[in-house]
């Protein structure tokens, strides 16, 4: 009798658990809150978000990865910045600037009354120090960015103690003189490594400088539990209160992507991005979430690079054939509409992109004909090196089946990001592989020069990983760098786009958009094309008690 009761009880318990889990009554997965309805931005509150990696350093002279910028940009104001949501250069710590007619000198007038977060005034000498620190610091990734400043090469080589091209006139004027025109100079000066720094702070901090940012922006570092969370607090001395509504910004580190969305749904986070496929599809199909989903086109390009010095890719017809063989509608479907078809390296919205060039159409007959002409009527076998990332592997599988249709049999070889980037930088590396590029600053030279200029070809350290270069394109890119008239410059880059389209050193595939979803009460925010997740001007539209208002 007792045993039967036990058995019945056990069966009942299991049934109840299964019923609860499979949920005859699924939870409401729409937003749980609504904006309180404030007319003007309100101060206060804590905004929480998460990333699936960790910050390596908060020293702006070294921090180089995207998630580092999520906190560095609110911490460090620079001379100039990108406009909110856009790529226009606007003043920040500089009140105004002037460039000389030959484009070789920039004069910056600093905003009066600007200070570090401890109240000490910021002077022009602090900018000179941070720029020279980037030139002399052991293996700073930014050294080369300043290489066009007059005298910078001598400082890098260690033959001059100070950079002749960086001069200070009083406390408020900074003059940069270039040895070679650099059309991206202002964009470079918007990067956090150019923020003013104090020599005595750097010296005092010693090897702790990576944890002690000397803030000049709307936020200061309150706390960093490495690998767990970074807490930024409002900087009360900041000159522009419209950029510092929040009391705190909390960035949780190392939270896996799908966990982030679960936390977001449980209101443990205020925003979530990089949504994994099921979460993204859910958000996109739920009308209640639509107003809170933000898309940003990144400064990127994805596809496959061919080493044009290795057969069979030394034949342009083969490279074009592969471009015709790729069906970009597959990629678009696989990436759920976050991929924009590419005709070249420049993403939509980038200066110099020629919107009149259509992406290669999917044309199997044309591809076969070109292959036959090139002497490969039956196609060929080739290895394809790609990285162990879910999205990239999926796209590679799709490419594999597309190319098989024209007889090109690719054998996928999957490796880590680190191994992949080492391999493709070698002249003797794989002939065909996955490729991607994200620009450091929004200027066409930041795409073309490192990828397709002869100067960027090295035996083992090539950024030009297709080893493609022609004297014609080199000359065009060099002329575009020197050109001062924007229209003439744009025409040159249109021409460069056309050359690369025809010569096809890559299989041009897509540009990636990111999608981010915020809680309804997060206002005044949209992801930025360069900084992506910068919440410094966001504010929280909460109820009078400081809590979110339920729907």
């Amino acid at each position, binding site marked *: 009798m007792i*045993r039967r009761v*036990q*058995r019945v009880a056990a069966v009942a318990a299991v049934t109840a658990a299964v019923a609860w*889990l499979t949920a005859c009554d699924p*939870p409401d997965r729409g937003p749980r809150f609504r904006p309180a309805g404030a007319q003007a931005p309100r101060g206060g509150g804590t905004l929480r978000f998460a990333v699936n*990696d*960790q910050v*390596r*350093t908060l020293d702006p002279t*070294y921090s*180089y*990865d995207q998630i580092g910028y999520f906190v560095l940009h609110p911490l460090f104001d620079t001379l100039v910045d990108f406009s909110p949501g856009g790529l226009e250069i606007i003043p920040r710590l500089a009140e105004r600037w002037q460039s000389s007619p030959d484009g070789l000198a920039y004069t910056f007038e600093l905003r009066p009354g600007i200070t570090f977060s401890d109240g000490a005034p910021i002077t022009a000498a602090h900018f000179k120090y941070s720029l020279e620190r980037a030139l002399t610091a*052991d*293996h700073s*990734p930014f*050294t*080369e960015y300043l290489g066009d400043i007059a005298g910078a090469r001598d400082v890098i080589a260690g033959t001059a103690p100070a950079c002749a091209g960086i001069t200070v006139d009083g406390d408020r004027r900074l003059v940069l003189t270039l040895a070679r025109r650099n059309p991206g100079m202002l964009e470079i000066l918007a990067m956090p490594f150019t923020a003013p720094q104090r020599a005595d702070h750097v010296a005092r901090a010693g*090897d702790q400088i*990576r944890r002690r940012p000397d803030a000049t922006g709307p936020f200061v570092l309150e706390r960093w*539990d*490495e*690998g*767990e*969370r970074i807490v930024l607090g409002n900087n009360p001395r900041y000159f522009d209160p419209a950029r510092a509504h929040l009391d705190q910004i909390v960035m*949780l*580190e*190392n*939270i*896996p992507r799908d*966990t982030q969305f*679960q*936390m977001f*749904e*449980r209101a*443990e986070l205020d925003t979530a991005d990089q949504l994994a496929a099921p979460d993204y599809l859910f958000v996109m199909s739920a009308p209640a979430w639509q107003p809170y989903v933000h898309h940003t086109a990144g400064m990127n390009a994805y596809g496959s690079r061919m080493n044009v010095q290795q057969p069979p890719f030394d034949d342009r017809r083969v490279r074009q054939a592969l471009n015709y063989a790729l069906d970009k509608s597959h990629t678009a479907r696989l990436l759920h509409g976050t991929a924009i078809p590419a005709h070249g390296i420049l993403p939509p919205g980038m200066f110099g992109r020629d919107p009149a060039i259509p992406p290669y159409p999917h044309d199997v007959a044309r591809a076969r004909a070109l292959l036959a002409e090139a002497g490969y009527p039956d196609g060929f076998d080739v290895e394809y090196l790609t990285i162990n990332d879910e999205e990239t592997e999926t796209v590679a599988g799709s490419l594999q089946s597309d190319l098989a249709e024209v007889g090109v049999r690719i054998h996928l070889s999957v490796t*880590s*990001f*680190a*191994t992949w*980037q*080492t*391999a493709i*930088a070698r002249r003797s590396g794989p002939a065909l592989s996955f490729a991607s*590029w994200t620009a*450091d600053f929004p200027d066409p030279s930041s795409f073309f020069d*490192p990828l397709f200029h002869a100067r960027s070809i*090295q035996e083992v*350290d090539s*950024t030009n990983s297709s080893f493609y270069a022609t004297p014609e394109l080199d000359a065009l890119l060099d002329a575009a760098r020197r050109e001062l008239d924007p229209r003439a410059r744009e025409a040159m880059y249109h021409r460069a786009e056309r050359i690369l389209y025809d010569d096809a050193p890559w299989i041009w595939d897509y540009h990636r958009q990111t999608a981010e979803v915020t809680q309804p009460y997060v206002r005044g925010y949209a992801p930025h094309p360069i900084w992506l997740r910068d919440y410094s001007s966001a504010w929280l539209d909460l109820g009078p008690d400081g809590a979110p208002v339920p729907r």
Partner: protein
Amino acid sequence: MIGAIARRLGWMIVVAWFVVTASFLVTAAIPADPARALLGPHATAEALQRVRVHYCLDRGLVGQYGCWIGRVARGDLGESYRSQRAVTAIIADRIWPTAQLALGAIVLQLLIGVPLGIAAAVRRGRWPDHGAGLVGLLGQSAPPFLVGTVLLYVLAYRGGWFPISGYGAGGWDRLAHLVLPAMTLAAAGVAYYARVVRSELVDVLAEDYVRTARAKGLPERTVIGRHALRNALGPLVTLAGLDLGVLLGGAVVIELLFAWPGLGREILLAIVEVDLPLILGVVMVSAIAIAVANMLVDLAALWIDPRLRHG
């Protein structure tokens, strides 16, 4: 006894050196350039060369090894390529979260596994035995990423009883954050401990002295608790000790899933980024943890069972 300890310590150093050297060779064999991993795909040849010089990466295999071992001999594990932070400082930060997770898991394994094993042994062939067998089968065959994901979905996301992820602020909050990862880590151990306790206890229960105890008319509780269990727990001490050593090396999958800032996650990130000094540092600490645990288990056995000292 002192001689035994000294011999053990000597072996420990040899084992640690061997493991670390093997790790060095394996890592060096990865065809990925640490300088490039550090500076990213945009790096120029000049910048890459400066990094290689800075970290001895321009010296070939023997040169790099010499560079590293020379520093270790001076007690310096070097600095992480990616964060430019001292490897010893990183390990010091990461070992405490891992230790908490390891201890939590061991406690759960003992608290759940031992009673389960006793129940199964005492009611052999009846439902507690079958139930424990089923739990054991599930716990041992389900991979941690599955157990963890299910626990996370059911108890945290749907139920809302535990935080989804992270390390917590300390105190009760830390404990609440610890429960799910510790349960996941303990799942396989619970099953194993229950089986060990069951089989030991089944053997002991058949011994003459247990029959004598029962014949004396002692209550069953005393027979099992006082007489049988004590003799069945010996192997468990060894098991738990060795487990602790292994768990101190970090639980990669679980730490990653629950955003637990321990050694396991740190070494995974280091491997992905070819951060050689950090990889070697963590491997060395893990090897030492296991060697120390082994030594303590052996010493504990000597202390518990006098017969071994003269064996």
